[in-house]
């Protein structure tokens, strides 16, 4: 007798648990307001990333096309996997002194692991992360970027 | 429509598949890559023979199923005439089901309803 009671108890409990699950899914079916997906390429315009989002490393330039990179190479040393390569050149300044300035700051996006060590260790805060996240290109060569813009100068007052 | 029309539905189904497959055979690309013809096994070549004697584990269920399937032959006609025949039919089916149920209970108690 006990086993029969147990048998029916199992059935009612089982069916009850199934109904509880269906209650949840059914509720979501009838509440379209809870949809969480975004229509991604359509909402590009008003898609805001977090300000600290590590998209890619950039070198901010001001409106006079000046950057802060002195070409010291600390970022290159700190990068764990050789993403950054700083190529510097020597020029003679107006007052006749020799000075090493940056020629090319090469950044290989394809190798970058976004560990932020270059940005953190830069003594003159020349590097930053941008919020750009659409990195896809058809040619790997396009992932090797030169961060300083052509003709850019070292910002005044940065040593 | 009379029952002979069933052949029409058989033909429609067969034609539907046949025509579409033939059409797809014309338009679909054909590859020469032999790797594609390998049966799927998560990217690893198959080991051994596929068609082996296979322990399906529901042999007893199949035998029980056979008994119960034959039982349906009786129950379906009975169900149609149940209303008209009345009490006799009811008593008959009670006896029939009790015998069936006892058989099922026997199999249950003998642990035949456990997947081996």
């Amino acid at each position, binding site marked *: 007798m006990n086993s029969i009671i147990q048998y029916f108890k199992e059935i009612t409990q089982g069916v009850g648990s*199934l109904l*509880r699950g269906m209650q949840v899914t059914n509720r979501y079916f009838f509440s379209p307001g809870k949809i969480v997906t975004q229509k991604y390429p359509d909402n590009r315009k008003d898609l805001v990333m*977090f300000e600290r989002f590590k998209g890619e490393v950039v070198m901010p330039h001001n409106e006079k096309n000046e950057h802060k990179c002195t070409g010291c190479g600390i970022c290159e040393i700190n990068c764990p996997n050789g993403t950054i390569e700083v190529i510097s050149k020597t020029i003679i300044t107006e007052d006749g002194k020799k000075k090493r300035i940056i020629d090319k700051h090469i950044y290989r996006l394809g190798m970058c692991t976004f560990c932020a*060590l270059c940005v953190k*260790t830069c003594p003159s805060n020349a590097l930053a992360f941008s919020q750009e996240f659409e990195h896809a290109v058809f040619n790997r060569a396009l992932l090797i970027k030169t961060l300083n813009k052509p003709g850019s100068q070292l910002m005044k007052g940065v040593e | 429509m009379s029952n002979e029309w069933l052949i029409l539905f058989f033909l429609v189904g067969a034609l539907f598949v046949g025509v579409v497959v033939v059409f797809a055979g014309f338009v679909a690309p054909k590859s020469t890559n032999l790797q594609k013809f390998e049966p799927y096994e998560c990217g690893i070549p198959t080991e*051994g023979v596929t068609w082996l004697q296979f*322990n399906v*584990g529901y042999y*007893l269920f199949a035998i029980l199923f056979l008994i119960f399937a034959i039982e349906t032959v009786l129950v379906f006609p009975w169900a149609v005439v149940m209303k008209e025949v009345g009490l006799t039919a009811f008593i008959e089916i009670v006896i029939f089901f009790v015998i069936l149920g006892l058989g099922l209970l026997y199999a249950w108690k003998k642990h035949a309803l456990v997947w081996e």
Partner: protein
Amino acid sequence: MEEIIKEVVIGEQEEYVINMGPQHPSTHGVLRLVVSLKGEIVKNVEPHIGYIHRGIEKMCESITYTQIIHLTDRMDYLSAMMNNEAVCLAVEKALEVEIPDRIKIIRTIMSELSRIQSHQLFWASFGMDLGGQTCFFYGLRDREKVLDIFEETTGGRMIVSYNCPGGLMYDIHPNFRKRVKEFIKYFRGVLWEYDAILTGNVIFRERSIGIGTLSLEDAISYGITGPSGRASGFSCDIRKHEPYSAYDRVQFNEVLYNEGDTYHRYLARIEEMRESMSIIDQLIDNIPEGPYFVKMKPVIKLPEGEYFQRVETARGELDVFIISDGNKNPYRVKFRSPNFVNLGVLNHITKDFKIADLIAIAGSLDFVIPDIDR
């Protein structure tokens, strides 16, 4: 009669060898299991790993301690915070640096958040392994909220690189407290759905109770840690036994069960989410002001010696063993990754269960393949 039937049913036959993985929906990555079957019954499981072996231990030997952080992120990417923390703690212990409370508390909150998101993903993928696809989306929906918190503060979602030797990479975002509280409130509100859809479901219970039972002796002998070990009654929570960061100042229960089956491995994780939330509750209002890092030398050199640090990640005990010869690069770094050790028990506990159970058991051990391969 019975004997005859038995003879018919069980005939001798060859082994039926089938590959599960590396491209299989429920091996959660590139794990390959060579399964020997007899009908539907699993007779032997042989894991083949190494498809994404990157030699992290070897790579560590040629980079500095600060740079190791970005590699540990990529081991168990669901416990990135805890992996980072393990290396940082080992280095700080070696240098005997005193870490301020602020850093300790933030690290603890971050660790617990990442434990929650890891268990959420476990819930999601475990449900999917058992055929309940909706679980996957509910789990990911809730996990997204934790990842948003991470992204706001650290700039990364999974690969956070947040801890560094001596502190943290960034200070917490001004919204951090508010968002964490919002999340805890939200998640307490939806946790009952998890129970309604999976925990209480009769099909789920039938599929998981009594499946893949691991005894306490075997759990210890195989070294199964984390929720999987605690489901077998193995009290192995490092947070309790060797408290690090701020775990010595919070109250929480070590979730322990004695059954050790798939269902209790699952239940242990669900309960751990609740415990994690209570830990966060205790700490979130008590973050003291102060600096978020301790000034360290630009190049960290560990004194010669051996340093061992145990940390409880979402999947079990992660040990970092650093042998230093006094240089800026470690001489040898060993990561005792929980998944690698847990994988060793798979064959033992899946024997004589069915294919569907194999999936359930493997799912309940909650493998992260990059952590196995390292």
